């Protein structure tokens, strides 16, 4: 199983991503899509990243997931740059013979993406002000839960998000 990892400015279509995962005849496909929320007068989200590192970080997270669960397919698509409310930011899809494996792998990847990939979000509002999104402590807590659940392939590094 070779994970599909894409980092891109362009909008993407989760349909196409899911369709590829479904074609593998694994039987169970779980996916997560994160979108830009338009609340509080938000007009744009800017996603900055560390180009030399980002793809490697995503590959590592994908490899960790593949080491923990029996996967037939794993896809991560993450956008960078400027995006509008309602647009998709990130897609994680996992295929497996077992629904639990597909769902847990997807959940693991999105949790680790939040804490272990070099992305930073800046929000721009209608009144002209903008602000960098603060890391949420809950993300580090959520990420740590995975070290209790399965040992195999756990990297055990300190979370990069949170306080």
């Amino acid at each position, binding site marked *: 199983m070779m994970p599909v990892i894409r980092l891109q400015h362009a909008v993407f279509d989760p349909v196409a991503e899911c369709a590829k995962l479904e074609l593998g005849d694994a039987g169970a496909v779980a996916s997560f899509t994160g979108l830009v929320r338009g609340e509080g007068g938000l007009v744009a989200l800017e996603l900055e990243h560390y180009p030399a590192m980002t793809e490697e970080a995503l590959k590592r997270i994908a490899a960790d997931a593949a080491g923990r669960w029996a996967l037939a397919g794993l896809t991560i698509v993450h956008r960078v740059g400027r995006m509008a409310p309602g647009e998709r930011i990130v897609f994680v899809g996992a295929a497996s013979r077992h629904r639990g494996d597909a769902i847990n792998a997807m959940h693991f990847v999105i949790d680790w993406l*939040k804490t272990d990939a070099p992305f930073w979000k800046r929000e721009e509002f209608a009144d002209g002000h903008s602000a960098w999104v603060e*890391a949420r402590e809950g993300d580090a807590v959520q990420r740590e839960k995975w070290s209790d659940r399965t040992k195999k392939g756990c990297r055990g590094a300190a979370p990069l998000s949170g306080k």
Partner: protein
Amino acid sequence: MAIDLLYFAWIREAIGCDGETVDPPDNVTTAAELIDWLSARGDGYADAFADKGRIRVAIDQEFAGLEKPLAGAREVALFPPVTGG
């Protein structure tokens, strides 16, 4: 030895550039010491690094703790806690 520094997010904005090449003195051996040394360079740096608890580091494109020895590192990135996904 020369080190390529990279700054991201509000650290980049506070300092006013996205990176530079520096040649810190020999007594700068860890990321934390590098941050202290940079902070003495001016207001932008001092602002960016005022709270070390909010700084994260990657050394040669590997995430690292602030106390990790630089030990011949070529590229050091300084950035806030990540907020992707």
